[in-house]
């Protein structure tokens, strides 16, 4: 009897904890998470050092990859996305270089390698975070492929994409998130 009561108590405790944590997650979850399949176009973009980069090679390496879409003269969305990338890099410092971070410019006309390099410096970016620009056509193809294309750059989306090297699918996080939320998503992708 005593044992049964303990089990019941434990069960109730666990259930309420689960409910609580769900309620907590529900209350705090300010973003949407979906699984997506994208056909990444075979384009060559230019990084912050002016070096040509094959987008497919960069995205399909043996590392987990995080991608966002920003521009250097952006007001709100990009600084918050970028400060999160910066903090993420600091947080996983023991695994430096284990993740590839990629920011893709949605304003290729203004975002020259020089401007992108200054932007990365402002966020104290470590190696392993690349900022890519390119021709208007190539950038549009990339944005359309990842379903983040908007005709007006000011209407862009707060999106981070995550992918494990062992999975063909992408996790799409829509909404501005904190680093702990990003780490949770990252851990899920790594598994």
């Amino acid at each position: 009897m005593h044992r049964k009561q303990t089990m019941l108590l434990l069960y109730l405790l666990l259930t309420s904890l689960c409910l609580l944590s769900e309620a907590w997650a529900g209350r705090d979850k300010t973003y949407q998470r979906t699984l997506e399949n994208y056909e990444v176009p075979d384009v060559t973009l230019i990084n912050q050092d002016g070096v040509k980069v094959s987008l497919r090679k960069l995205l399909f390496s043996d590392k987990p990859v995080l991608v966002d879409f920003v521009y250097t003269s952006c007001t709100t969305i990009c600084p918050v996305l970028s400060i999160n990338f910066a903090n993420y890099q600091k947080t996983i410092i023991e695994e430096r270089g284990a993740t590839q971070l990629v920011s893709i410019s949605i304003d290729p006309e203004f975002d020259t390698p020089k401007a992108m390099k200054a932007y990365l410096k402002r966020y104290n970016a470590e190696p392993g975070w690349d900022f890519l620009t390119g021709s208007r056509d190539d950038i549009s193809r990339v944005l359309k492929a990842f379903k983040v294309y908007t005709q007006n750059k000011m209407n862009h989306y707060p999106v981070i994409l995550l992918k494990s090297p062992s999975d063909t699918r992408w996790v799409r996080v829509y909404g501005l998130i904190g680093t702990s939320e990003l780490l949770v998503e990252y851990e899920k992708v790594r598994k």
Partner: protein
Amino acid sequence: MSMKAAGTRVLTAALLACAFHGTVMAETSRQGMVAGVSREEALRLGERMYREGILPSGEPLKAIVKGDIPMTGNQFTCANCHQRSGFGSLEGTVRTPPINSAQLYAPLSKFKGVPVSRRSALVRETELYRPAYTDETLARAMRTGLDPAGRQMSTTMPIYFLSDRDMDILVFYLKNLSTGSEAGVTDTALRFATVITGEVSTADREAMLAPLQYYISNWRISRQMEQSARAGGFVQEGEARELRRLSLSVWELKGPAETWRAQLEEYYRKEPVFALLGGITTGEWAPVHKFCEDHKVPAIFPITDFPVISGSGGPTFYLSKGLYQEGEAAARFLHRKEDLLKEIPILQVFRNDRAGRILSKAFEETWTSLGHAAPENRVLAGGEAPAADFWKKLDEKSKHRVVLLWLDSSSFPALENLARSRSLPDVVVLSSSLLGNRLYSLPDKQRQSVYLTYPYSLPQDSRAYKANIETALKKNNIPITNPDITFKMYSLFSMLTGPLSRMRTYVYRDYFIELLEATPDLSVIPVTYPRLSFGTGQRYASKGCYIVQLTDGPRPELVKRSEWIIQ
């Protein structure tokens, strides 16, 4: 009267009293000071915190964003999201609310976030979203993220670590943000000016001025809005004074450029203006640029080949970087022609005049920044034409396989000589802006090796649009004395109409500039340029330049040899 209704009334009265109290408090404390700091100093220090993220100590501000991300003021600032004016921003689905003084220190209703104190009686009774901020609740909001109603704000708004004194300074700054009145603005009128320098031909002057005057005198707000306002109906805050009439003064600058500043000051003293629109010079715009910077006067799309090249985001917005953009594009194009360039020496030939200096400087700056050795420069004196044996001598040296000839159409015979020389360089780069229509008569033999910088929409892409605009202008009896200039003015109007409409009663220069910066990219009608776009701090609307070649035959067309943007 039901208890509920009575309760609502009492509550409303109390809230209105609060609103009134809040307004009075705001007015009083606006006069107040930060202890031990002069008003000017407090505003200067506050502006530096707000715009640059730097504390009075010189250290960057420190904050936490999204609940767990440490950030500093040199990464992004209050002004990033709320903008310099404090009127906020809208980016995709992310809205940053206004935090200018009038908005903060007034209660906010749930209806569209409009301050209650400024609403019509009908709407005044709607439920409050939050009461007016006080200095204390404003400080609490920045430290904890709680609004005056005790509601947790979005965590995209950082939580700041500020000492009491620094907080007092920032609060004082916000309390004074966008509160003054602007030059050239009255309740019924909004005054602009346009600057024309003395040496501009009558035809070019008219080509700039006639469409601008037409635009200003025909400026209308939407018929529906006007009717509603005139009928005394409900007018949302911000709309009523959109009925202001626009007016335009013409500021003619005479004599040498050194005297322009004094003339500008005198015009401005006599009739202060809100902003400069258009304008034209064949010389440098720098004196007008400096004047605008010093008086914080926005200047939109002056027509000049010689804009000031700067990354500092002042109040002048240019159509493009002018000739500088062509030199820059030439360098980027050659940099990407790896098959051609294995550190082959490059020769620039230019006159010692304004155009020659700018083109060669732009090329050299860009070329060396891309990691190449500086080009060799051959400078021709002012009126000097290349000597008859110039190309022959060049030929003998034959080490320059890439030659940039930044020469205008008066040097054209010399260019034809080049075609007759024994061996052409592999690549000859010319500026289409300098050559004008003469570029189409380049000898066939040269066309294989000649590349032209072309910072405009290609003629075949823009012809139909230009024809439509010409038809519209003729219909309205606007003379087209120089189509290139008239079409540039069309670009001005395309860019200007949105911000002018959206500014409504919030007629502040900073806000006007922010609305221009936030104007959607214009790429639908590629009249002069394929794309016009801005962003925060961006000051050159058209950023590209094609490198083109001519097709063979007597009626050559331009063929793209590069993207519009060459990275």
